[in-house]
């Protein structure tokens, strides 16, 4: 198991997960989101290649109202 930060919360997850698998494990239900790891954008096309590492800071952002 490794520790990562997801939207500011520390989570313990299995080692070796890619972003796609991470989203499934988190049961993230919000439709239409984008992912950044350590403040670098990870496009959908890269989800299967990007393996989550110990200490990674993952941001999952979804649409909200804005000015």
């Amino acid at each position, binding site marked *: 198991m490794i520790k990562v930060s997801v939207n500011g919360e520390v989570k313990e997850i299995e080692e070796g997960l890619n972003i796609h698998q991470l989203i499934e494990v988190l049961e993230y239900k*919000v439709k239409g989101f*984008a992912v950044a790891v350590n403040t670098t954008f990870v496009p959908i096309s890269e989800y299967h290649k990007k393996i989550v590492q110990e200490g990674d800071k993952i941001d999952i*952002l979804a649409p909200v*109202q804005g*000015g």
Partner: protein
Amino acid sequence: MDEELNMKSDLWEIGGKRLSSRLLIGSALYPSPSNMEDAIKVSKAQIVTVSLRRQAAGEGGGNAFWEIIKSMNIEVLPNTAGSHSAKEAITTAEMAREVFGTHWIKLEVIGDQYNLQPDPFETVRAAEILIKEGFEVFPYTTDDLVVAKRLADVGCKIIMPWGSMIGSGKGLMNPDNLIAIRKQFPDLQLVVDAGIGKPSHATQAMELGYDGVLLNSAIALAQDPVKMADAFRVAVVAGRLGYEAGVMKEREFASPSTPTVGTPFWHQFD
């Protein structure tokens, strides 16, 4: 009368789109999503700003709002609000492009947490990189002419100087600075963004020759946001028509408008 007023609003182009409304509005701070929807409809705005934020895994809160916006057949302009560096703004822009399916980005890099003043150095740096990445950048900046020049130098076709601090409602604090930017860049699309509190502020910005105004709080925080949206719609058209008509030059002294020749009872006993 409303239809007639809308007909008078000329078409203009921004970010490669031809639009009839010069009013850009935000989607935040409304009393409810349905109130937001009604206000946007009444405003006739064709560009609405949106944002991205963290949401908990089980939340679907953002979906209802986004479903409404998607159903409205309007252009969305995602912002990078909350960014404090070029790096954060660029990452947010890239994420927004994927989520919202648009290459438009309202670039907002804050340099001071107290007055939410944009950071000119990081804004220019981010704009340059985002333009190279294919974004249409709508940079939020101060009314500083030199910063506007730097943004134009890196390829911005649109510049959005503030009227005053975000959410302050103070109106146009430095109209002379806004005039200077307008004169320096007759061919860029200029939009006054932030600080507008009343419809007359929007009219004033349009009378200065600005191509549009972007506001949120002034409508959303009004006692009746839908009625205020209507007021801003009319105010923007009025200001634009005033600009096109050519405002008279100010005079130092009074000058009668009624002809003085044939004035009755005047000096008749002298």
